[in-house]
């Protein structure tokens, strides 16, 4: 008797634009600490020293990203299933740790039009010069909050609260229409007008 995991966008797998995919079930921990060096050594990755950036590294919990969320606030992201050992590991350090793995789900966006799609709803300048790889900002996309990471030349990662994920998916579908990214999938989330 083990309940199966269902991700917030489980029903959207085949409906998302070809350039958008969900990475569900990642281990995520919200960390508040002014002593990040110790936590960094537990994870094997230095915590970001500058606002609005993230760091990546590898250690005893495998590949780990640490996202700057605010002064003394970070989100540690690792592969699925590691939230319990990571939380235990970090609890040894000074600060607070909260397992927030299911609080948000993760979307990976890629492709040459990714900045165009995001620019329809995100007011942050995502030009490579203004937001180079390694950037991590919390901001609004359309009418929902997101954490946005610039992870590659044309690759972005969005973290969105689980309850807003379907809205964001529908919005991304609609914003992608003009760029021909939906393939043969019918347009979802297109404003319905008024039935």
């Amino acid at each position: 008797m083990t309940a199966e995991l269902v991700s917030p966008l489980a029903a959207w797998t085949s409906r998302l634009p070809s350039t958008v995919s969900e990475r569900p079930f990642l281990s995520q921990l919200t960390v508040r600490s002014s002593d990040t060096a110790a936590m960094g050594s537990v994870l094997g990755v230095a915590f970001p020293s500058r606002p609005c950036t993230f760091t990546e590294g590898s250690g005893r919990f495998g590949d780990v990203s640490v996202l700057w969320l605010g002064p003394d606030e970070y989100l540690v992201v690792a592969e699925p299933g590691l939230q319990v050992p990571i939380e235990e590991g970090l609890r040894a350090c000074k600060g607070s740790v909260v397992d927030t793995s299911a609080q948000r789900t993760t979307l990976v966006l890629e492709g040459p039009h990714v900045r165009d799609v995001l620019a329809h709803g995100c007011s942050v300048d995502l030009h490579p010069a203004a937001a180079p790889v390694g950037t991590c900002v919390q901001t609004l996309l359309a009418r929902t909050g997101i954490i946005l990471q610039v992870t590659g030349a044309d690759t972005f990662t969005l973290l969105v609260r689980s309850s807003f994920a379907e809205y964001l998916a529908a919005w991304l579908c609609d914003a992608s229409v003009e760029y021909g990214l939906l393939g043969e999938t019918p347009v979802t989330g297109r404003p319905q007008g008024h039935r």
Partner: protein
Amino acid sequence: MNFRTPTGGTIDRNTLLHFTFNGEGFTGHSGDTLASALLAHGVHEIGSSVKFGRPRGIVAAGSEDPTSLVQIETPFPEPMLLATTVELYEGLEARGLAGQGRLASISDPARYDAKHEHCDVLVVGAGPAGLVAALTAARSGARVVLVDEQNQAGGALLGVDEYLDDRPSASWVADIVAELKSTPGVLVLERTTAFGMYQDGFVLALQKRTDHLGFAAPASVARQRVWRIRTKQTVLTTGAHERPVVFPDNDRPGIMLASAARTFLHRYGVLVGSRAVVFTTNDSAYCAAINLAESGVDVPLIVDARPEAPARLATECAARGIEVRAGQVVTGTEGEGRVTGVHVAGATVACDTLLVSGGWNPVVSLFSQARGKLRYDAELGAFVPGEELGSVRVAGSATGELDLASCVRQGREAGSAAVVAAGFSSRGQVPLPVSDSRCTSRSGLVLWRVPGDEDTSFVDLQRDATVSDVLRATGAGLRSLEHIKRYTTIGTAHDQGKTSGMIAAGIVAEALGVEPADQRPTTFRPPYTSVSFAALAGRDRGALHDPVRVTAIHPWHVAHGALFENVGQWKRPWYYPQPGEDLHTAVLRECRAARSGVAMMDGSTLGKIDVQGSDAGKFLDMLYTNMMSTLKVGRIRYGVMCGVDGMVIDDGTVIRVGEERYLVTTTTGNAAKILDWMEEWLQTEWPHLDVHCTSVTDHWATIPLVGPKSRDVLAAVAPDLDVSNEAFEFMTWRDTQVAGVPARVCRISFSGELAYEINVTAWHGLAVWETLMAAGAPFGITPYGTETMHVLRAEKGYPIIGQETDATVTPHDLGMSWAVSKKKPDFIGKRSFARAENQRADRKQLVGLLPVDPSVLLPEGAQIISSDHLPEPPVRMLGHVTSSYPSAALGRTFALALVRSGHSRIGETLYVPVSDALVPVTVTDSVLYDKEGTRRDG
């Protein structure tokens, strides 16, 4: 009749587009506007005026036109567009308007969107100055955006036949546009009007992306887009509008601005008439006269109001048989509909067209919106930018400069200064073109109006406002232009006074015997040109209007026929009707299951905040009215929060997870507010406290499992948990496995029944819910929604924040003095309880109401009075019904109410006016079911 020239213009003569106007069929070409295509057929009369019903024609060639209002019917009805800005397409149907448009009665199927753009330099207007400014910035490597409202760059050059660097100006324009478009980091937006200029370099621009395609517009492409441009530096090269002169009967179709005639000729290959008289106060109209004459129009006469005509131009005119009369004015016109003659010096000169030029008004709307001060330029007779603004520069004819060579030099200087200010070094000088322009001198006479019949001398042709209206306004004692604008309605129409505003100011100044410089010009307000509501709504419509928040278990609710209630942005199951059930029968069934068997609901929307740190207890003691620091690890306490004014703002449970860790719950609607509230106190008042708050609302799926059989169901799915009353006490929690996954189970109850709140990660929510449904099947487990939850808690007298409270209710009013600590020296709201108003005995207090007739259901929101007959208004009201339900458990209806002195009225009979009747009710304690609390342990 055909008024199309054999050659010339930027229209594509190989295309033939069919359209109808006022029901009559016409043809035109790709590149035409509706106005140019109509003029090509000799149609000048577009609509009629709003007040007098006088015919109205085409005055200008662009978005400043005051008169050519049309209604578009196809592909979708759109009101109040200017024929001069509607690009022609196959199948266009339009009709002229009398000042009022008509909205479609059906929904607009088009898509709209918005896009953010960031740049170093924004250039508004792709005329000669703007092009040079943009190129200067672009060559320095800056991110540049160039917007222009036309479908092609060139600005004023589109309407003239001038040569730049010994080649047609269009070729010069094309080269610059090509370079701009091929430069990385440069965005050229055509058909894009910058309509609003706000703080910090924020400029809004509307791009008309598919309107010109008519029926061929792809449905997938957003029809219009609002560009939200954030720029470091702005160069406004917005040009100038020619203005007319006011004279008697100046409103007949066929009377238009000289520059418009020139634009129709050069850009569209259209002659605006057969025989044109020109009336001017400056040089520029001479070029229109010469151009038209050279194109075969009979131009018998130029009437120049100046004492002397410009010698060189007069000579050129004479060579073409155009008589020039200086020192004269047009004193009137005649014609049925279109103009057929003009009055000059007591004689009538026959014509079908009168071209007028009264000088030029720089387009300063955006500059003014950017809070730039304007200065009256007496030589020009117009307001011009009167100061330097930090990051906003103005160049070209928008400054009042009319000489082309000077305009482009200004453009280069502004572009260079802007790009340097944005942090770049200006690289290389963009070469300035050499112009052969003959007609751009400033030397004009400022003439607002020609004396004559003031009742037919129109200042605002769209609003039918005349000189006599202006004089009546000043005669009524009005001095401020704003008052006169309102008295006469001048400048309030579709064109917002683009051509009429300055003239009105001039006429007012004359009437008052002051200089226009002494007056404060009326304020320019966004938008510069009108913007459809739908474009501003963008993508935030229909399914995307506002986020729908759903829980992990939502798909199950949908699949099982739940009806939903909006709670904030959440969709919550309201009730689960079975076939044939209405709200009441479904809710009675759901309630019965919860009180006699087992039922469960999706409580995942409750706000959940993790509070950690060595000062967490101290912090919560300040926020809650009751004591939280004394709560033992493993235990749970209900808490109430007040604002500083002492009024209840939220409630919920607080569980102590560890010595330095709590998990607090909030009401669904207040989750974000309470987290903000906590952070505000922490960060701004008590930053020394070691406390961190983290929202975990979405992390957890929460399932209250309720009813006498809930223990059996839980036992079946949580084999590791000792669910006995002794081992798992009320108001405690356990971490365990439920359905094989980690879970936190809380023994709390919002119904008074034995109940467990099961929390698992949202990923597991759906599966655990289904497992519970299966495990509960033998007990008849019943899912219930918010309505049943409300009934169950109301039977116990538990208030709902926002339903029993309305920002005027204290914990004491709710009968919750027990939840207000008397030990704590302070907590938020405590001091307010001591105020005079809070000490009154007659405060409204929460009580139960039992209708004397147990079958009568009181309407929620009904008022309560003490007398058994309805007196004349105003009637003294004692309070109102906050909640009212039929109750399965009580076998009758009941209600909760806030009643003045309620706690001391228990047992009294009061009356509730319902329609025309008075329903007698008995006041009771708010706890109506299981007062002794025997059911919570099962």
